[in-house]
Each structure stands twice: as structure tokens, then as C-alpha cells.
């Protein structure tokens, strides 16, 4: 089948599913769930058909786009642009998305509003696929807002709870702030380049006709900061955990928040080195800070949310270092292990009757062996234990910071290295703490006492995502485990098309299959610029410190696990840090007092300014202009209404008057 038709089908499946659920199955319960899961299955199948049938040539241009609006020279297209980075993202969204749909069936079994939930998931899949395939800035913005909407809708799934309603509002508003900059950036980019199409902008920059502009890059970056919850817009993500756990796994860990990173990778060629440096520092700092903040939470999901922030920071750091391929690779690995961690937490929460406090759990390993094993695998993966998926991407990012520093001789990169290395320590700290507290020791509450393993709907996704993918998703990058099968379409556990970008980034041009693309940057700040895993390892090897780098990362990981093992103990019922050092614990729990600062700003500054404007509006615009003109129009309306007397004689005279009026015109009297 034509790839264009496949793309269309891919987008239509979730849209149709959402439409059917919204129109007919709002109280449909299990039927709605079935429709949505089937749609997710359809997406997965079609995605893999696309990936297997694709020959590696970028798909885009006129054949893959529809003109949507056209006024003179002003034109907006809806189209597809399919390249290696979209292939990776598509594989992640389709595959992880499907298993989270399956998991949701089990998790939401006692929910009254399945129709709304599964309809929302379908809308989300539609919007997310739109972002993945979008060919231009306008289109990506539309779908960007649609994922924002579906996230808003799903966070507020338990809308009768105040905190859920407030969290959804917060997520929505904070994202709008980022999107404002994003929108201005799009307008500027369109004005400057004369097109919003990725491929065309790309060609303009590659040919040297136009240069990337730092201002545009910074504005577009605002969209990334909002969606991927980076400083200063990070405050919404932890609150968003008020939504159902599968939503946290799918939207707020695996895919939507990573869309920010994906977008930055997509427009990598129009980010100047200055913009990349800003991204690098913001994200490296966030990787470390969020890691510490995770230690100040007793809610299992919130702790994981800070872990997500920290790992989004890693992705941003990889991007800022100039390795888009590596950023996407960490995104993909993170999608596997973080989705697993959330799903495990969902399985635990479900088993403990919606108890989310870790210190009321404990001893769940024996009661929930499958969940426990999946959680352990994902923990080892996120902490970058060798051979596990996270090791390949995360350790490479840490090493790459050092490698780039050694190559360019710029000592600032060593600072970044230090930040992400400490972040690696925090990873094993909070993950070790979580594992020991939740799964080992004795149950700390009645609910944990009676917990038992979840049903197959939930355990099968845990086995696939947790045990297989958290372990093996990164093997394609290994030099010993990168076996190919299925005619070379698959490498280790992933489709080969999906691994290419992670390995090579935009450097694919060297082997000729990606010719004419973005490899020719005007000013490369360092050698591996624009590349992926391979280029990062070149940098590490070139620095000559490979053993030291590997050793230090490994030591950090080990240190974290050992420290927490002895500090927290097995299955404690209280947070030892909280009882021993309440000051430090509170500082971590307050995560930098950002919420308080923003609250103060809104209440004291913005509110007052708004009040002044409101007064002016009431007096001038509403009072004088609106009410005034409405009054005049209403007065005329009363007069003209009274002309319809209902008397047929009167109407006939109207006609005669009309004829006379027309006649006067004809004879030139008017």
C-alpha cells in the first residue's frame, strides 16, 4: 500500500476511535475500552508496516502534503515529513502506547468513566502522531496544542477531586506560557525564512542562503521548556500526577513530555550554538536538581515525576552538547523504563487500593513478583547498570559531556559533566530508596498487607516493557549484542529504521543514504556535532579517559544503591531523612520554592495589574463602547421591529413603496 495512504490511516484510526467513543460510547464502559485498545493495536500494526516498508529516503514534499489555506502567497499546508528521527519516535509512540492502552484496561476496571478516559487516550494518540509526522511549524503547533488539550482532559479525569482539577489547570496554563513564545517564534521563523516547512528551512540553511537566528531558536525553545517541563516551567509536571497512572506513564513520562525534545531535534538545524548552550545548562542543572527533589517526596508517583524531569534534563543535555541522535536515544530508552516504572507503580497503587504513599507499602516483592521483577529491571535500567537499556544512552551522555570538553578545550563542559554525574548519583539514590521502601521489608499498612499480583491485562505489558525492553532496548548500540534478523529489518530488539537516527543522528549523510540533508552545518562547534551514539563514543574515545568515565559513572551508581540500602533500610514506615534532617527534607520537598514564587507573583503583581485593567475595561470598553453601541442598535431594533405590524394592508403598501423606490432609481431620480 502507498505510504501516504498508510500515514492517513495512521492518523484516522485514533480520530475515528475518539469520535465513536465521544458520540456513542460515553457511558460505554468496556466497549469504549475495547474500541480504544483496538485503535492502539491498529496504530502499532500500521506503524510497523510503515517502518518495514520504508527504504530510508526522507518522505515529504508536495506528494505528502495537502494545501489547507491559501491566500495569495500565504499558504498553510498539512503534510507529512518522515525521516529517521520520526521513525524512532513513531516506533516508541506506537509500541509503548499500545501496551499502556492494554495496561489501562486492567487499571481502570473499577472506574465509572471509562468512556471519557479511553476517548481521551485516543485523542492523545491522534495528536501525538500528528506531532511525529508534521511537516511544518504550523501543523506541529496545532497538534502541540491538541496534546496539551488531551493532557489537560486526562489529568482532570478525577475531576471531582479539587487537586486534580487544579493540577490540570496548572498544566494547561504553564504550557500556554511556553506556547506563547513558541507561537511568536513560529511567526518570526515564517517571516524570516518565508516558509514553515521543515525540509525547506533545512535546505535554506544547508545551502547557506539563510542563517539560523538565535532569537528564533530561543523562542521556539520556549515550547520545549513548557512541554518537557524544564526550568522555569517545570512546576506543572509533578502536579500532573493527579491523573490516572497510565496517563502519567504514557503522556507525562514516555511520549508527550518527550515531544519537546523531539521537536528540538526536528529543528536542530535552526538552533544556533548559543541556543544549544542555553538548553545544555538549563537541562543539566535540571537533571541534577530534580534528582535531589525526588528524595523529598513520599508519594511514589511524584517521586517518579521528578525522576522524569531529571531524565528530560539528560535528553536536553545531550541535545545541547550537539548530539540529537543521543537525545532521541535516551528518549526511547527512557520511554521503556520510565513507562515500566509508572506502570509498576500503577500496579502497586491498584493492588493497594489507591494508596500512593510509599511508606505505607513495603514488602510487596513476595506478594507481587511480576511487578517487582519488572520494577527491578527498570530500576537497574534507569540507574545505567551495564547491559541494561539505560546504560547505553545515559552513560554515553555523561561521557560525551567530558569528551566534548576534552575536544574543544572548553572547561565549561566539565561543569556539565559534573552536573550530570551527580544527577546519576541521585538516580540510584531515589530509585534505590523507592525499591527498598516499596518492595522489601514488611508491609506497613493494612492495604499493603492484602495486596496481590495484578491480572494479565496489567502484567503482560509489565513483562514486555519492563523485563524485555528495559533490559534489551539498547542492545543495538552494543558492539556484541547488535544481532540483526528479519532480513536486517530488526536490530536486537528494535526495528533497524528506528535505531539509525539514534546511532548516527544527522550524520547519516556520510553513508550516502541521507544525502543533501542537514549534515552541512555552517559552523560546527565540535567534531561530533549533529551526530548520535557513534559520534559521542568517538568523542569519549578521543579524550583517552574512557576507563575513568565508565568507572566514575559505575561508582556513582553503586554508591547510591549501597548508601540508600544502609540509610533507609528495608521497608521502613517513616522517611529517615524527614525525621533526622527535617530542614533538608523540607527544602527538597519544596523543590526550590518555585511554586511559592509563582504564587506570589500571580497574587501580588499580576493580579493587581489585572485589576487596574479590569477597571478600565469596565468603564471604557464595556460601559461606553459595548453597552453604548448595543443600546443604540437595540433602539433601532425596537423601531424596525414595530414596523412588522402584522397587518396585510400595511405590507402591501410596503411593496408599493418598494416598487416606487426601485422605479425612482430606474428613472434616475435617486
Amino acid at each position: 500500500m502507498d505510504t501516504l495512504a498508510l500515514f492517513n490511516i495512521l492518523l484516522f484510526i485514533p480520530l475515528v476511535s475518539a469520535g465513536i467513543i465521544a458520540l456513542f460510547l460515553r457511558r460505554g464502559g468496556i466497549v469504549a475500552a475495547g474500541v480504544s485498545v483496538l485503535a492502539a493495536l491498529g496504530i502499532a500494526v500500521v506503524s510497523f508496516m510503515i517502518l518495514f516498508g520504508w527504504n530510508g529516503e526522507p518522505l515529504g514534499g508536495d506528494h505528502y502534503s495537502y494545501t489547507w489555506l491559501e491566500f495569495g502567497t500565504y499558504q498553510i499546508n498539512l503534510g507529512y515529513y518522515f525521516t529517521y528521527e520520526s521513525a524512532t519516535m513513531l516506533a516508541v509512540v506506537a509500541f509503548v502506547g499500545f501496551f499502556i492502552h492494554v495496561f489501562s484496561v486492567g487499571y481502570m476496571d473499577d472506574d465509572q468513566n471509562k468512556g471519557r478516559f479511553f476517548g481521551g487516550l485516543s485523542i492523545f494518540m491522534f495528536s501525538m502522531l500528528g506531532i511525529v509526522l508534521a511537516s511544518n511549524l504550523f501543523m506541529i503547533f496545532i497538534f502541540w496544542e491538541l496534546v496539551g488539550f488531551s493532557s489537560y482532559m486526562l489529568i482532570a479525569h478525577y475531576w471531582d477531586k479539587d487537586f486534580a482539577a487544579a493540577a490540570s489547570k496548572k498544566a494547561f496554563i504553564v504550557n500556554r506560557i511556553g506556547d506563547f513564545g513558541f507561537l511568536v517564534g513560529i511567526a518570526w521563523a515564517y517571516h524570516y525564512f518565508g516558509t514553515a516547512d521543515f525540509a525547506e528551512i533545512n535546505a535554506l540553511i544547508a545551502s547557506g542562503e539563510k542563517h539560523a537566528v538565535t532569537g528564533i531558536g530561543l523562542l521556539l525553545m520556549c515550547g520545549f521548556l513548557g512541554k518537557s517541563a524544564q526550568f522555569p516551567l517545570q512546576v506543572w509536571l509533578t502536579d500532573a500526577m493527579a491523573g490516572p497512572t497510565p496517563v502519567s506513564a504514557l503522556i507525562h513520562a514516555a511520549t508527550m513530555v518527550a515531544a519537546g525534545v523531539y521537536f528540538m531535534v526536528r529543528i536542530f538545524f535552526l538552533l544556533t550554538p548559543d541556543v544549544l548552550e542555553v538548553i545544555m545548562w538549563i537541562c543539566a542543572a535540571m537533571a541534577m536538581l530534580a534528582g535531589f527533589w525526588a528524595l523529598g517526596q513520599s508519594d511514589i508517583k511524584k517521586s517518579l515525576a521528578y525522576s522524569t524531569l531529571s531524565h528530560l534534563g539528560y535528553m536536553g543535555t545531550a541535545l545541547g552538547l550537539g548530539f540529537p541522535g543521543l537525545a532521541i536515544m535516551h528518549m526511547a530508552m527512557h520511554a521503556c523504563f520510565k513507562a515500566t516504572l509508572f506502570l509498576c507503580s500503577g500496579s502497586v497503587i491498584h493492588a493497594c487500593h489507591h494508596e500512593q504513599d510509599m511508606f505505607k507499602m513495603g514488602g510487596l516483592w513476595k506478594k507481587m513478583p511480576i511487578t517487582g521483577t519488572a520494577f527491578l529491571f527498570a530500576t537497574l535500567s534507569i540507574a545505567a547498570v551495564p547491559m541494561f537499556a539505560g546504560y547505553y544512552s545515559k552513560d554515553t551522555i555523561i561521557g560525551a559531556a567530558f569528551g566534548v570538553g576534552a575536544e574543544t578545550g572548553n572547561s565549561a563542559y566539565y561543569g556539565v559533566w559534573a552536573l550530570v554525574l551527580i544527577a546519576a548519583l541521585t538516580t540510584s539514590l531515589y530509585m534505590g530508596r523507592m525499591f527498598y521502601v516499596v518492595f522489601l521489608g514488611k508491609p506497613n499498612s493494612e492495604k499493603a498487607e492484602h495486596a496481590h499480583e495484578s491480572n494479565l491485562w496489567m502484567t503482560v505489558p509489565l513483562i514486555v516493557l519492563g523485563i524485555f525492553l528495559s533490559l534489551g532496548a539498547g542492545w543495538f548500540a552494543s558492539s556484541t549484542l547488535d544481532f540483526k534478523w528479519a532480513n536486517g529489518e530488526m536490530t536486537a530488539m528494535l526495528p533497524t529504521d528506528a535505531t539509525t537516527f539514534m546511532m548516527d543522528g544527522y550524520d547519516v549523510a556520510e553513508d550516502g543514504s541521507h544525502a543533501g540533508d542537514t549534515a552541512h552545518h555552517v559552523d560546527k562547534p565540535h567534531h561530533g556535532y549533529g551526530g548520535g551514539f557513534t559520534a559521542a563514543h568517538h568523542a569519549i574515545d578521543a579524550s583517552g579517559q574512557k576507563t575513568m568515565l565508565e568507572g566514575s559513572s559505575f561508582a556513582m551508581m553503586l554508591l547510591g544503591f549501597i548508601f540508600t540500602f544502609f540509610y533507609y533500610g528495608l521497608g521502613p514506615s517513616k522517611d529517615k531523612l524527614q525525621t533526622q534532617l527535617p530542614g533538608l527534607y523540607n527544602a527538597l520537598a519544596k523543590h526550590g520554592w518555585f511554586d511559592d514564587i509563582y504564587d506570589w507573583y500571580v497574587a501580588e503583581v499580576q493580579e493587581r495589574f489585572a485589576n487596574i485593567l479590569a477597571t478600565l475595561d469596565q468603564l471604557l470598553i464595556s460601559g461606553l463602547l459595548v453597552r453604548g453601541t448595543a443600546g443604540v442598535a437595540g433602539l433601532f431594533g425596537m423601531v424596525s421591529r414595530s414596523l412588522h405590524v402584522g397587518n396585510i394592508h400595511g405590507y402591501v403598501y410596503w411593496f408599493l413603496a418598494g416598487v416606487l423606490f426601485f422605479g425612482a432609481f430606474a428613472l434616475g431620480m435617486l
Partner: protein
Amino acid sequence: MNYNGFQELAATNQWSAIWPELSMAGIGLLVLCLDLFLPSSRKRLIPLVAIFGQLALLAVLVMGCGCATESTGPLFGGMIESGPYTPYMRAFFVLSSTLVCYLGVSYLSRQNLPRSEFYLLTIFVSGAMMLLVQSSNFVMLFVSLETVTIGFYVLVSYCRYSPFSLEAGLKYLILGALSSAILLFGIVLLYGAASNPALAQSTTDSMNFAALGKFIAATPEEPLVLVGAVLVLCGICFKIGAVPFQIWVPDVYQGAPTPVTAFLAVSSKAAGFLVLMNLVAGPFAALSKLTVPLLSAIAIITILFGNITALGQRNVKRVIGLSGIAHAGYLLVGVVAMAVGVALAPWAIIFYLFAYLFASFAVFGVMVHLAGVEDEIQEIDHYQKLAERQPFLAGVLAIGLGSLAGIPPLAGFIGKLLLFIAAFQAELYTLLGAAIIGVVISVYYYFGWMREAFFIKPALPGDEARPSYPMPGAVGIIHKLTLGLLVVITVLMGLFQRGIFGG
């Protein structure tokens, strides 16, 4: 005329060229026969036959729309000539007629009235409209126009137990007859003038648009021609409800059964506009010095009058009627732009008519469902809290009204935009200003209606207990699908307007 002449004329009688009109007549006759011969227990088949027959015809027509249509030239001795718009307008009238029949099913289920005649008349009238928009001869025009009008006399007073309906029927009869008389008088004057051998380019075939056009081009200053032309325009203005011939609209729209109101608002108005377009671009093309200022003045007054008068109305059928006058005003702007010679204008008008069709039938669909037995008493108050009682209907209403008001991204917005672009290209800045003011005013009453449905709570706590208006039951699946389809098309036409008429 000698024998050869007749033979040449007979050669142009290509019955196959008007097969859609013949099919409509066939469906009508089939309905009539079924009514005669079917046992009364089987009579419920009749609306099905009427609706599915027309749907089948519509499907064939829509498939044909995609093919390139070549003008067949004058047919039936110059009586009929299909133009570039004909395929679209055929589909338009069949679609509208189908929807009217569909609403009729819902309406008639609540009334103790004869059933089959309703479908029969609707189908015949629509067939006549399809002929009307192709007529290229005043005789043909008048005959098909009268077929339409006489059908409407009956349809408007169809609810013969309701004094409102009867009163509306009487008003429509008298004013319709008056306007027909004016129209006929104008035709006669033109006939007389064009047959005068003393004048240049006089013709023996002076009812024919082409011949008449040549004559008028040669003698555009002749007073008889001018008076004749404006009298014809008067007659058409009655059809489209332009000021000062709008005066019948609110009363008749209110009194007529709701499906007939929809029929009047959509099909009858569209037919009037197509005739006006044919005249302005055809025989009256040389009179643009007269038609442009005259129609411009009418357009401005119509837009402002319609919108301002709709402001304080509480009866929704009157609101629709008065807002329909305003829509006629916007469309007149397009006609003026067409008379000035803007190529975009006719397509803008046709797009607008389609957008108006989908949005209006969405709103009428909601109205028919909510109406009680007393069809003419439908107040805005009845829509209070509709969003809570019937969220689906409230959503359909919001999109329908939004499209009528011209809110992006709905079809109505693009329709208005196209009309305004045409007016801009024709440099009709005053008209453009009036139209924009009109749109702003219209938002007020359309949104007032929506506000009632979504936000207003009953003023007194006791009101909730005893609603004075009918509380209709749940929406059936077919009604949901139909309304949903109309709404989806309205949204899609707003999002993808390219390619509908080839750009």
C-alpha cells in the same frame, strides 16, 4: 416560422439533459401513486421512498459534480441553458429537499395532518427550482417560478388547524401574487420594448435572455427597459427577502411549519439568488450602471435592517427569518461584486449558499426536535439549559449558529470571507463596511441564543419545577447521525475549502 424552423427547435429538445429534474418529477409521481394504491398500514413507506429516492439521485449528482461539465448550449428552443453552476445547484436543491422531507417526518409525527402531500409538494417544488435556475427565457422563468410559488402557498399553510399557519399562508399568497404580478408586468414591458422594430437590435424572440441581452446592450438608456428591469428585480427581491420586500418574512417564517420555514429559508432564497445572478450576468449585464447602485443600496439596507430587527426577537423562528434577511444582504454584496465583474463572486455566493444550507439545517434540525405540538411558539426561553438536558443538541446548535454568525473555523466564516474578498476585489468598500457592522451585530443575537442554551439558569427556583415548554425526549440515533453529519460537514468546509469548487 416554417417547417424547418420547427424541426431545428425540436432537435434541441434533449430530454436526457434534464434527467435530474425528470427524476424528481418521477419520485414525486411515485409518491403520489403509492399514496393512492398502498393500504394505509403500509403508508409509512412513503417518506422512506421520498427520502431514499432523493438520496440516490443526490449520490449520482454528487458523483457527476467531479466530472468536467460542458455547457450543452440552449435547449428546448432556448428555454433552458445549463451554466457552470448548474451541477452544484442541482445537488443543492436535491439535498435541501431531502433534508426538508427528513425534517417533515419528525414534524408530521407530532401533527394530525395528511402526510404524503407534504413530500410530494416538496419534491415537485424542488424540481421546479432546479428548472428555474436554468431558465434562459422569461416564459420558462415565470412558469417554473409560479410552480415553486404555488407549491409554497400550500406548504406554508400546511398546518390547517393552526391559525398562525393559515394566516401565514394567506399573507404569502397575497404578497406572492402581488410580487408575481409586478414581475410579470416587468417582463411584459421588456417584451414590448424589445419587440419594437423602431429600436436597434429589436428581436422577435424577445423573451429569450440572449436576444434580450443583445437588445439591452444596444439600447441601455430606454426608459421602458429600465422600468421593466427594475420591476423584474422587484419580483426577485420578494423571493430573496431583500428590503423593502422583506416585510412578509418574519410572519410567514413563524407561521409556516418548521420544515417549510427551512425550505423557504434555504431553497427558495437560493433559487432567487441564482435567478438574480443569471439576470445580472445575462440580459441585464449592460444595465450595470443601474443594477450596481440599486443593488448596493438594497444590500446595505437589507444587512442593517435584518440584523438590527433580529436583535430583540424572542421567537426563534422570527430570529431565523430576520437573520435570513441579513444573509440575503451579504449575498447581495456578492451579486453586486459579480455585476462589477469579479470572477470569484459567483463561486463565493455558491459556497456561501452551501455553508448556509448545512448550518441552517443543523439549527432547524434542533428546532424541529425541540418544538412541541404548537410549532409556531418556539421561544428562545425554551432553550434554557439545553446543554445540561441535551448536550448533543446544544453542541449542534452552537456549531450551526456559530457558522451562521461566521465564527472561524466553521464554513460560515469562510463563506463570508470569500464574499468579502470578492467585494474587496470589486472595490465595494462601503458595502464591505456595512457587511462587517452587520456581522458584528449578528454575533449578539446568535450568541444570545447560544448563551441561553449553555449558561442561563432559570431565574426563580420554582421555575425549574414546572417548565412551561415541552421537554422532548432523547435524540434518536438517525437524528444524531444526520445532525452529526451536518455539523461535521460544516466544520470540514471551514477547514478544507480548497478543492470544493476547484479552488
